């Protein structure tokens, strides 16, 4: 796939369709591919990478890229195309300045899960059927995909590309996913248990802001957490659990707009399952306002910015809060 992508990118650079390419660059280690812009065939040859570790959602980078001159080529996985649609809807990305090549995706490997399988010195990864063959300093090792796929890929909601100008590989289907199972487990807890769960998770937060910085729904010109006049700007935390408010506020801010791409949890250095907060919102929205998937289109009104006669009444908050 990587070769085909580089070939097609070169063609589009040569024929002038685009003047640069947004893709993934080899990192210091094999599992650490980072988003990068390539402006020449040479740069692509040297640095472009696409494999089972290239997990980053490139859509957010288009907020900045589409403000520059000329058209940019971007490679998007199915889940990333939801983000692009949402950003287009919010006028954050000028879709006319993007050439999207949709690439099929069978799920990305989670390096922490590989390590848990006892793998060290990882040099590369290739997919073979239901398995990954992992090249390590200590020789090749085979592992079942199901055991090491990232959580968001295990419960993948869609392999269908929502927007593209062309496709490399094959388009997939929307999946009847069981992604809300964990949310349901949390809902079934008592409030004390749930509090303990989140206290345990969120007390680990070091407030590095990686979740916010990577989130395609967090593209504000000035984030409230960086705005001294907002009243919620960064201050020293009084206790280890104070950062919960940051995460709760952030979840509210992206509610109805979060496409559940899972980047927040992927980049969290503390391994906090932040996506569960957003998924709870998505599940609630589905239940209260009808099924809604942010990023499916570029023009519908999200349930929280729309009014219908069937909308639930505010009393729902109280009714659902009763334990």
């Amino acid at each position: 796939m990587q070769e085909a992508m580089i070939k097609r990118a070169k063609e589009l650079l040569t024929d002038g369709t685009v003047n640069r390419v947004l893709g993934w660059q080899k990192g210091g280690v094999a599992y650490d591919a980072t988003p990068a812009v390539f402006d020449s065939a040479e740069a692509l040859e040297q640095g472009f990478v696409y494999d089972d570790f290239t997990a980053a959602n490139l859509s957010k980078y288009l907020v900045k890229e589409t403000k520059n001159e000329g058209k940019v080529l971007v490679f998007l996985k199915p889940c990333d195309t939801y983000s692009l649609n949402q950003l287009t809807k919010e006028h954050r990305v000028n879709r006319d300045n993007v050439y999207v090549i949709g690439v099929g995706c069978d799920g990305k490997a989670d390096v922490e899960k590989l390590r848990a399988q006892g793998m060290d010195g990882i040099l590369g990864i290739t997919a073979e059927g239901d398995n990954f063959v992992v090249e390590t300093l200590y020789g090749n090792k085979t592992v079942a995909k199901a055991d090491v796929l990232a959580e968001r890929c295990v419960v993948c909601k869609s392999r269908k590309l929502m927007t593209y100008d062309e496709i490399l590989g094959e388009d997939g289907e929307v999946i009847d996913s069981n992604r809300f199972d964990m949310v349901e487990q949390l809902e079934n807890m008592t409030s004390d248990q749930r509090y303990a769960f989140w206290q345990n998770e969120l007390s680990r937060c070091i407030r590095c802001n990686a979740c916010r910085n990577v989130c395609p729904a967090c593209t504000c010109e000035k984030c409230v957490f960086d705005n001294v006049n907002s009243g919620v700007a960064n201050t020293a935390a009084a206790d280890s659990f104070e950062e919960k408010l940051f995460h709760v506020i952030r979840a509210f801010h992206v509610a109805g707009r979060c496409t559940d791409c899972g980047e927040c949890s992927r980049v969290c250095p503390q391994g906090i399952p932040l996506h569960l907060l957003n998924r709870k919102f998505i599940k609630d929205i589905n239940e209260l306002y009808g099924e809604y998937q942010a990023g499916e289109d570029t023009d519908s009104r999200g349930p929280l910015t729309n009014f219908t006669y069937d909308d639930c009444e505010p009393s729902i908050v109280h009714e659902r809060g009763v334990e």
Partner: protein
Amino acid sequence: MQRIGVFVCWCGSNIAGTVDVHKVAEALKSEPGVVISTQYQYMCSEAGQTLIKDAIRDHKLTGIVVCSCSPRMHEATFRKTAAAAGLNPYMVEIANIREQCSWIHKDMEVGTEKAIILGRAAIAKVHLNAPLVAGESPVVKRALVIGGGIAGIQTALDIADAGFPVDIVETKPTIGGKMAQIDKTFPTLDCAACILTPKMVDAAQHEKINIYAYSEVAEVKGFVGNFSVKIKQKARMVDTTKCTGCGLCVEKCPMKKVPNEFNLGMDKRSAIYIPFAQAVPKVATIDPTACIKMKTGKCGLCATVCEAGAIDYTQQDSFIEEKYGAIVVATGYNPINLDKYDEFAYNQSPDVITSLEFERLTNAAGPTAGKLLRPSDGKHPHTLVFVQCVGSRCDVANEKGKSYCSKICCMYTAKHAMLCREKYPDTDVYVFYIDVRTPGKNFDEFYRRAVEEYGVHYIKGMVGKVAPQADGTLLVQGSDLIEGEQLKIKADLVVLAAAIEPDKSARPLATMLTASMDTNDFFTEAHPKLRPVESPTAGVFLSGCCQGPKDIPETVSQASGAAAKVIGLLVKDSLTCNPCVAHSNELMCNGCSACEKVCPYGAISYEDKEFRMPDRTTAIRRVASVNPAVCQGCGACTVACPSGAMDLNGFSNSQIMAEVDAICK
């Protein structure tokens, strides 16, 4: 630093009864910025206002907090007071220590503590207040009346007579409403048609009145003085400009088996129809659900016979957009559905009818040409039983009915009973009642005439069961509470005084108008005693039964009252705008359109603007801008904005947070 004055009102014993006002004034003295804190029996009285004015001058106050009733009650009063003393009126904050405090607490200690907290929050807010200057917006000198019954007609006539153009939107093919279906009117017994139809004609011929019959309000935008309304004209399949109302099509139409809604389904009409002889506008309407041509494509007889060439089977619903300064709601009422009243056998026997059906049975233009005949066999009934309060004054737990009194039933039942006895002296007439309520001019005299002169048997008690018998009669079982006995009456006809409820179109309309309703879907008035014809939503007025059950004289009075209010509004050339409007901080605005989507007034638009960036480059960004003349300051945008770029004058995010902080302190 602000110099703040705090004025705590006793409101007689309304506040002082459960709040220690001296303690509140004393406690608030030590809040930052407060230079004077005092209390008085009635702050809104002239003496109270003078106290405030003097304090503003003597203490050089820059802001004041009045701890009193709801801002809906007296905010405007105290703003005027401040302005009279040279203070910007938007430097006034009200702490509601009456509705939200003294009225809901019984304990003095609790009430006092809460009043202090509410006062503290208002002080925290006024610290961040800034002087605001109100602009002006023009008034569109045109009124919309929604509903063409007697209420709507009267309101429209009164407004039009004052010289302002009025549009009436009526959902039925003709105006006239319920009154057109009624036979005689109490307490004078004049014929409803004789007094209504001239008014209908007046409305139709009035040069300032335009009637959109067979139409509905589809969308309402804007605000007082400047509403923009989309009206849907339903397709009649008849060109109203050509139709002469000759009725030839109605006569020739082969489809004559459609239940006639005007006669409440007691006879049939044709698929193309004119509801009644005096309909306004008198034009035909094709019922697409019954028309053979519309359903099968074959027939077309009406088009063949129509000499005016008015029939147009291809007609589509059309939309009109018009601007109005004021809107009057006159959507009226309907009798409730009696399907759930099995005990009265309404659905089992055609001889159990509602009072409105009885009106049609005794009306000369009704299905029996005014002869009182039983619907089942067309025979003359000899024993009639009227049952009052069917679905009215019910237990709230009883889901079938309404908790309120429908108000008109006692009088029309007395009328029915009296007319029955007068026209047919051979009849025996019984009325079962809980109470007889006759609070109107000449009403009790009227009821007593029914009993004393016409020999109507009034029985205090409810009917438990109506059972159709094999011989075609109805066995009515009821209790006579005064005699203390159970009665069994063999009746030929049973008439149920069904409760009335607001028309079903009222609820969606209220949402469009952002006008409030009570739990029974009656529109709420701005003040139950002092502003009974106004909705709390500025520019929206109430006429007739949409606000509560009413008889005709009361409806007409309210209709004229609403018209007077509308005229009072339309004579103004402009209205003072609310300066508490939203604005966006363009440096923070993402241009994401969230605010535009939630704005109910369409006040927000976007523009691409060039910005100088910190690194000395320029960038073009899409940013929101608010039209202050259209914004109503509801604040929906401020909470939808993810970055907090939208803020509201007078209710800024920082002010609200300051209030919350003060409360949580």
